[in-house]
Structures are given as structure tokens and as C-alpha cells.
């Protein structure tokens, strides 16, 4: 996977994760182009489109579009599965997630994604393991946070 974008129906970016190294300008250009293309598509259309030499796989959940760019040989259906799995993870973590959760806790959304994917490859397929890792890291954060305050 080359990158993942989350954006709202209004085209506002909510999360971006790049697994290829690009300059900020290039990233912005790509983002703008993809957001436009995806938003222009009608609801009944299929979730795949060809863009440059990549394939874009996207899916809409409530007000948010989840959008991944994959290479030619990658499997579109498994990418949809990845998106769905990520949504499930967010849902479990936040407890029926909504766009606002991701806006206000965007760093958590990143942490969850980082436990799920690494370098664009699936790192852990078990939802339980991912949530466990996140919980423990959060706990560690709380501890180090409180110790930093007390010391």
C-alpha cells in the first residue's frame, strides 16, 4: 500500500498516512487530486478506480471516506478488508466511532493505524492483539504522564 487518506464529505482531510517518501508539495497535489476524484463518484459506483499507475480503493463510512492507494498487483478486495478492519478497530477503541472522535483524537487514530499496518503491509491481523497493544501503550503513557507530573 502506498498511502491511506481519510477525508470528510466536504473534502477535508482527517488523516493521512504515507508509506512512500514524498515531498509535502507532491503529497498535497496527490491528495487534492484523489479527494476530488473520489468525491465526484456517485454512491452506487464500485469502490475501485485507476489513478496514474496506482489503484485507488475507497469506501465511505458515514461521513468519512477511507481511501487507500495500492499498486497494480495488489488485491483490491483485501484492501477493502483492511479498511473495514481499521474502521472496526476505531469503533472498538472509541466505542462507536464518529468523525469527531477522529478529529479530536487524531493521534490515537494514527497509533491504532500504526499497530495495524507498518510500512504499508499488514502487521497484525488479530483485532484483539492490536487493541491490547494500544491499551498497554496508553497505560504506559498514563503512567509516564503522571510520573512526569509528580516528579
Amino acid at each position, binding site marked *: 500500500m502506498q498511502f491511506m487518506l481519510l477525508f470528510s464529505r466536504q473534502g477535508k482531510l482527517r488523516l493521512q498516512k504515507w508509506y512512500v517518501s514524498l515531498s*509535502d508539495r507532491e503529497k498535497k497535489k496527490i491528495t487534492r487530486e484523489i479527494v476530488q476524484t473520489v468525491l465526484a463518484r456517485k454512491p452506487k*459506483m464500485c469502490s475501485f478506480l485507476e489513478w496514474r499507475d496506482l489503484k485507488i480503493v475507497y469506501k465511505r463510512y458515514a461521513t468519512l471516506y477511507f481511501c487507500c492507494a495500492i499498486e497494480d498487483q495488489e488485491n*483490491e478486495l483485501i484492501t477493502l478488508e483492511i479498511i473495514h478492519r481499521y474502521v472496526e478497530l476505531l469503533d472498538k477503541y472509541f466505542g462507536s466511532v464518529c468523525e469527531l472522535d477522529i478529529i479530536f483524537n487524531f*493521534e490515537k487514530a*494514527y497509533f491504532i493505524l500504526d499497530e495495524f499496518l*507498518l510500512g504499508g503491509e499488514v502487521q497484525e491481523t488479530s483485532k484483539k492483539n492490536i487493541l491490547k*497493544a494500544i491499551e498497554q501503550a496508553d497505560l504506559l503513557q498514563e503512567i*509516564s504522564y503522571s510520573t512526569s*507530573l509528580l516528579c
Partner: protein
Amino acid sequence: MALKMVKGSIDRMFDKNLQDLVRGIRNHKEDEAKYISQCIDEIKQELKQDNIAVKANAVCKLTYLQMLGYDISWAAFNIIEVMSASKFTFKRIGYLAASQCFHEGTDVIMLTTNQIRKDLSSPSQYDTGVALTGLSCFVTPDLARDLANDIMTLMSHTKPYIRKKAVLIMYKVFLKYPESLRPAFPRLKEKLEDPDPGVQSAAVNVICELARRNPKNYLSLAPLFFKLMTSSTNNWVLIKIIKLFGALTPLEPRLGKKLIEPLTNLIHSTSAMSLLYECVNTVIAVLISLSSGMPNHSASIQLCVQKLRILIEDSDQNLKYLGLLAMSKILRTHPRSVQAHKDLVLQCLDDKDESIRLRALDLLRGMVSKKNLVEIVKKLMSHVDKAEGTTYRDELLTKIIDICSQCNYQHITNFQWYISVLVELTRLEGTRHGHLIAAQMLDVAIRVKAIRKFAVSQMSALLDSAHLVASSTQRNGICEVLYAAAWICGEFSEHLQEPRQTLEAMLRPKVTTLPGHIQAVYVQNVVKLYASILQQKEQAAEPEAAQDVTQLMVDRLPQFVQSADLEVQERASCILQLVKHIQKLQAKDVPVAEEVSALFAGELNPVAPKAQKKVPVPEGLDLDAWINEPPSDSESEDEKPKGIFHDEEQRHAKQRLPEADEEELARRREARKQEQANNPFYIKSSPSPQKRYQDMPGVEHIPVVQIDLSVPLKVPGMPMSDQYVKLEEERRHRQRLEKGRKKKKTKEKGKPRRHGSLHTESDEDITPAQQVDIVTEEMPENALPSDEDDKDPNDPYRALDIDLDRPLADSEKLPVQKHRNVDTSKCADKEDVPVVEKKVKKPKKKEKQHREKEREKTAKGKEKEKSSKHKKKKHKKEKEEKSKDKKKSKKKLPSDEAAEPVENGALDEEPLPPMSSYCLLAENSYIRMTYDIQGSLQKDSQVTVSVVLENQSRSFLKNMELNVLDSLNTKLARPEGSSVHDGVPVPFQLPPGISSEAQFVFTIQSIVMAQKLKGTLSFIAKNDEGSTHEKLDFKLHFSCTSYLVTTPCYSDAFAKLLESGDLSMSSIKVDGISMSFQNLLAKICFHHHFSVVERVDSCASMYSRSIQGHHVCLLMKKGEKSVSVDGKCSDSTLLSNLLEELKATLAKC
């Protein structure tokens, strides 16, 4: 409760936390930019503070702003500060910010190296994890080089959480620093059998990604992956493995055959669509690579097509889309199977989703036949009318043209129909593809002689109709067709019904609004028309009419002379002068038509687009040599402007010049015919050669068969292609009736067909409306077949095309950070002790590790790979653990062997019982020595002897030194400056119970004979009672086998080798063997370094190569109780010695 209070107070202490920022931005919708610049100022203040918590908070806010599109690269250094915070909370934020905004161009990134290294080795797995995650986003070549070794160590971390992250990130490291691939690969391979499924799947992921790019280097892993595939139940992993096999099979067709069965089973059984789709895709890829066409595979194709049909029929648009996509892959190789589902594809053309329609269009190309082309195009034309977006309409247009023109217009039976379709397409407005239509018109008119008359009539109608000219003012590509129309009408003006009318149409003032290059063609072709009118009028003896036409030209041409386009202006000026001159001559009643027509005499032949490129350079011509002396560096640049003349002009020049020498031309033509007749790839322009050369001089030899027109040539007004559908049906019906009648009477005479062999039966029944010859494009004689290499030299994955089976060289070690300059032997010694202690403390952990190691060992035995040994050199610490483990596993060996069931796997290379190539060298109460000898293909006169030394006593062994008595042929490589009597020190010491491996290099001259060297190991044994000087004598046996290096060989290369006849032959037979052939083979391969080329039942061919490049081929057959081995080798002595050694091994079985 207390915590919350403290937290609250801290929050207040911060000027603004992330939530406040987000809320603020949402509340300042109108002046967002202003608000944010205010926030950034605040953040800058916060970053200046010393409190790390405040800094981290600021960085967190910056990360959010970065997502909104604000530049935060100025804070890169602050981000690094936060990354290096000791508290996980802040570190996490720092790494997140870095992963979001660092890229290869960030210059401060090099400052992070040491921080990252520190975090990687942190005792907290979450610190390490967060560093790995961050690194995966911003790793640069420098970071990859510096940290490769650290990450590689993490691949063997005790926590699977770290292991899987380290394994995954290795892929990014390989991409940035390809040199790390070979040193890290053995460990990566071990991870394929990691006990933790997450690590295992990570390793599968990485190797699949690597192999997808450079499959040939990973063929040796196929058996391992095959086992994983048949045993794994994790769909994520399965998909990756199946994808990997898709990449491997084109290189190894035998693998493909094995794969079909398990894959079809999966297709039948799986309920996961993603897996099903992957399987279908791979089956398709496999079947494409098995192009030899095995009949029983049609079942697999049928299965795929059936499953895809289910996908396409599904109401889920996604499945429909993918189904069509996969279908188009099948279409390329098995068009028949797909054609059966034409109905479905046509149905998808009506889908409301454009992307699905586009996919269906792709498929149509393969669906058309002579029979249904008209019908399909009709359908597409109706879509063109309905289509909303221009992109889709343009796509339709190109598809129509593509479908019709494919394979040299193979499917078109009626070119009148095709011309009408093209003309109809010109009514499309706003298309970008006017030039495509124009190119088709030109191509058809030039190459299909029989259609010219009709084409000309249609084109003149186009020129006459105003809509195209009118549309040229809008930004519109369709006026391009006028280019073609004008040229066709001019070039083939003899077919014009009303040339005068067309001439006037071309001289209308409106024409000057057209683009320059079109006007230029107009001007040129106006003269052609004019010439033909003059001729006509003069023949008809109507001088007034002729003068009238001249006057028209003189009146209208000046409008072109004023053109802003140079080309138009120049042509028009020339022609105007010419016409004025003609006018003068006409006034004197001089007949001019003959001479004017001579300007355009002769006919143009179509020339293949690549013809120019393919003209071979004559022998002795050096294109780079100077013809004249190079000019002095004068300033005058008299480069000729390029590209002013259009294609058409070039054609004029090319065609007309050589006619000067008729004889030469005739000679060449004969030669070409000869060649074409002999060339099976040349599509003959006509199957009736007798008819072809009926004394027709020059270009006239291009055959034109008489047309039997069943359709009126002139369709009144603008033609509608629809009319042809009906006409065509009637015609076919008539034909069928006729045929029925004819059959009764006589056998039909062989009708000339264009591409008979390519048609389906039903196609052949349809005779073309016109017997049309499609003139083949001309190519120069001796055209060179040019194979362009399309590989992109900038492909980042190219660097990873690395042979992984070659053993590691010293220079390839990963750079390790060293702070100490201490002698390595001492260093190793120091490290030994703590390791042992640690192990004692944590017996549980050790046991676990041990189990892992054992697994690795077994895996290695199976793989017949020894490269891991080389890796060991680098990691002394590990090495020692390993060789110790090795010992243990070896002791267990017999029971293992018995326990391991012989699997009846489907691959040739079945898993082998674990084996060790180490054999006993010498043993006493202190020490036990085992050794193995390995050669390398890179060094033809060197072998490496690895000696494992195991301390069996309670004493501490040190000052070990190994010495041998050199022979003339074999010598121990000693350090520089030492004499032949000096020993080579062993670079480590051995505490009680520890074993370690030392390597010694020997140089060898001849390798055809086995040899034994006497040697001594001397050492000091130290215990509580004091130290003694001890020694142990041994005999080092260099068998011929030890000079062989396992080298894979493909069966075709093997066959060639055997056929070459350069090899001498010898054979042996051994009786009384009870072991199964499978194990026998494995044993021979392992101990004697052979690789299996092919195996059929109980007969196998094997190959190996000596370090000096001798080929050794074996054919082993097993009878009831005996085994016979036939050997062929480039050296007979070597062969007989090898066979003797084989005999000894077999005798033990």
C-alpha cells in the same frame, strides 16, 4: 482522582492543548488562516520553553496543522527533541510528528540516527515499537545503512511484537539500502517458520514483496512456501503466498503444474471473495505461463470463467468490476472461453457505473468476430449518442476504432460500413480523438483500394458540409478529420463525381479558420484537384471551363497567402504563382493539363510506421564518422528547422525519388518478394500469386480484386451505418441460400481469404461483401527485427535483484557500530561469559530460544542451505549459542529422523530428514572437533574448512592453535609473514561446555583427487589445579565432494550439457540398499552437494559444479535392492573419484 486534578492543572498550564486548537479552528471558520497563524506564533513560543511536556504539546498541535496542509518543516529540530524525550508519552508524539513530516529531503534527519538506535535497543518494547513504526515512514538510505544491523538483531528479539515490526521494516531497509539484503536474508527466511503467526505472516509479506519484483532469486524458496500454502489457514497469508507463486511460475513451469490442483481446491472451497479472486488471478497467470497448452487445463479455465461469471452477476459493483478485470486477463490467452459470455459483457455495457462499463469495453475487443462486429459496433454507437461525460464518450470512440482495426481489420467484411461508421463518428462534438478518426480514414482509403471510390464520395460530402468547419472555432479536435478528407479527395480525385464542387468547398473563406496544418493540406490538395479538373476539361475540349477553374484558383488562393501559418503561406504563394503561369499559358491556348498532372503522377504506397527505423545500416558505413572535416568552432548555426513538413510530405519524397532507377527498383522488388514468400510471418497481401504479377509495372503490382457490389455505392446524403446492418443481413441470407444451391452442384472453388486460419468456423461462412485486399505496409528490405528493451533503468526495485543463494563474502557484512578497538579474540572472550551467565539466570528463556534455534536448524537442513554459516562470522555471540545448539540438535538427530514422517508432498523436493554435513575430525577428553569443507564458485582454488571446537572438559581452553602439514597441492592459508611451520591461532577461547566455530582457508591446485592432511591442534587447558599444554592430532580429509558446490541447473541446460559430448562417462552399482529412493536422493544431494534436475519415479538426474568449473551430471536409478549411478563429468579422474565416494555413502544406506 488526585491524578485527574493534577492533570487538569497541567492542562491549564499549557496555553492551549490539541482539543482547544481543534475547537478553535472549528469556531473560526471565516478567518481560519488568521487564527492558525496566531496559533503557530503561540506554538513557536511554546517550543522555546525548556519544559518537554510543553514542547510535546506544541509538536502535537503542529502535527494536526500539518494535516491541514500547513508547512511545519521549520520545527523539524523540535520534533527531534521531543523524539528523544525519555517519557514514552512524548516520545510517541515526537515519532508520530516525524513520521508525518520527515522525508528524504529533511536535512536534520541524520541527527536522529543515534536516538533511533538508542530507542531500538530500549528495554521497553513500546519504545522500540514506536521507533520502528516511525522509522518505517522516514527511513533514508543513510539511516538504512546505519541501522540495518540493529534492526536485523531485533528480528530475533524475544518479543514477537518487536520481531514482527522488525521483519516488516526490513523491507523498507532493503529498498533504501539493497546491500543489506544478502546479509539479512537468511534470518528473514528463518522467520518464515517463526512460532508466532504474526511474525510468520510478516516474513511472508516481506519475502512476497521482494519476490514479486525479482522472482528468479526466490525460486529456491518454492518448496517452503508450498508447504506454508497447504498448511496455512490464515487468508491474509494465503493471499500473499498465492500472489508470490503467481510471480514464480513464469520462471518455473513445473511449479505451475503442481499449483493448479491446490489452487482449484481453494477456489472450490473458500468463502472469502478476496482469496477466491487471488486464486483465480494466479490460476490465470499459471495457465498463461504454461502456454504449452495442456488439454486438461481447459477445466481450470472453465472453472475460473464460471467463478468470474458469478462475480460479474453479483449485485455488488466491486465484484462485478473485478470479475470483468480478471476476465480480460483470460481473454488474452483463452479468448474462446470468454467469448461464450458475450451476453454478460454486453449487459455490463449498460451498467450505471462508468468504471464497470469501461472494463466491459476492454473485454469487447476480444469478443468481436466477423459475425457480430456490426451488431456490437451498432450497440456502441448508440452508447456514444447516450453518453454524458466526454471522457467516457472518447473512450467509446477509441474502442470502436480499436475493435474495428484490430489485427489488420480482420473482422471487417464491409468497408463501406466502416467508412460510414467513421463518418458518423465525426458528428461527435468535443472529442479529443479527431486525429484517430482521420488516421483510420487515411489508412483505409490508402490500403483498401476497392473502397476508394466510396471513401472519396463520403469525404467530399464531409468537406462540403459546414458543421466541421464551423466547429473548428471551438476548441475541438474533430476538425482533424478534414485533414484526412482533404487529402483523400485530392489524392484520389479521379474518383470524384463533382470535382468542381469539392474544389469550391475547399476554397471557401471559412477554411482559413482551420488550424494551420489542415489548411496546408487543403492548399496542396486543391492543386491535385485542380490538375485533375484541368485534365478532364481539356479531354472534353472545354477550354472555357478550364480557364474558369483557373480563375477560381487565382481568386481564392490569396486568402491562404495571407495566412499567419508559414507552411500555408509558403505553399499558397508557390501555387498561386504556378496557377498564374498556367493562366497565361491557357490564354495562349497551350494544353497544360498533361504537365500539371505530371506533378502528382504515381501512386503512394503505405509505409509501415517503423520502416525508417528498420533500415539496416549497410556494412562498412560508420554513421558516427565525419564525412567532412569537422568545422571549426564557428558561431554560425545553420541548423535546419525540423518537423515543418508533415508526414504526408515525407512520403512524397520517399516514394518518388527512387523511381529514377527503374532497374534497381525492379531488382529490389524481386528480392523482397522472394523474402516475403519465404517469411512465414509476412502476411501475404493476396493468396493468389499468379494473379498478382500480371505484367504490371511499378506500383501497379499491388493487387486489386474486382468488386462484386451488392450494395449501391452511392448512399444518398450522409450515410447511416445502420442501413448497412440490414443490408448486411440480407446479403448474408442471400449468400447462405446460394451456397446451399451450389453445394449440390459443384464444390466451391477455394475462395481467397484474408486470414482464414484465425477464424472460427462460423466466421468462415461469411464472405466479405467486397473482396478487398488490404495492402500490407511496406518495409525496407533486410528490415531488422528490433526488440526494444522497455525496462526502466530507474526502477527502484531493480537494485534488489540480488542472487540470494550465493554465499556471503566478508565485504558484504552489515556495518556494525564499533566503539572498541580491542583485539577481536579478546572481545569475543569477554562477551562469552555474560552470555552464559544470562542463560543460567533465565533458563526458561533459554529453553525457548533453544527450541527456536532447533527449528531453524531443521529448516536449514531441509533447504540444503548453508549460507547461514557465513552469517555467523559476524555475530560472534550468537554464533556460539548456535553452534552449541547445533550440537544438541545433532545428538537428537537419530530420533528426529525416525520421528519425522516422510511427507508425500506434491513437489519434487520433498522435505528431508534433518542432516548435518559436519563430521568428526578428532576427539579426546578435552575437546571434540567436527568439520565441514565448503568451496565457493567465486574462488577456484580455495576452500574454507569450518571446524567446530567443543570443550568437553571442566577446564578452560585457551591459546588454541591449529597447524597442518602442507602438501604440494593443498596449503593452509597462514597470516602474512609466518612460515609453513607456524600454526594458525584460533580466534577465541573456550570456557567449559562451550563450543564455537573457527574457519580456516586452504588453497588448492588440483581438485580431481581426494587428499588427506595431517594436522595438530595445540592448546592450554587451565583448571583449578593449574594449566597443562595439550595437543590433539587429526587427519583432515579433503574429499572430491568437498570441492563441489550445489548449483541449480534447469533441465534444458542440463540436456544441452549432456548432448555436447564433452563429458567423459563412468558408472557404479551398489547392491543391498533398503532406504527409500526419496531419502537416498536427499542424502546424496545433501552430502555430495548435488541438486536434482529432474525426477521421474525412482530415477533422477542431478547436477553439481566444482569450484574450478567442472560440470558433474549424475543419473541415479533405483532397482529392487540396488542403485546404479551413471556419471558424466568434464574430468574423468574427478568423476571416478566422486563415484567412489558416492559408493561409500550408498553402501552405508
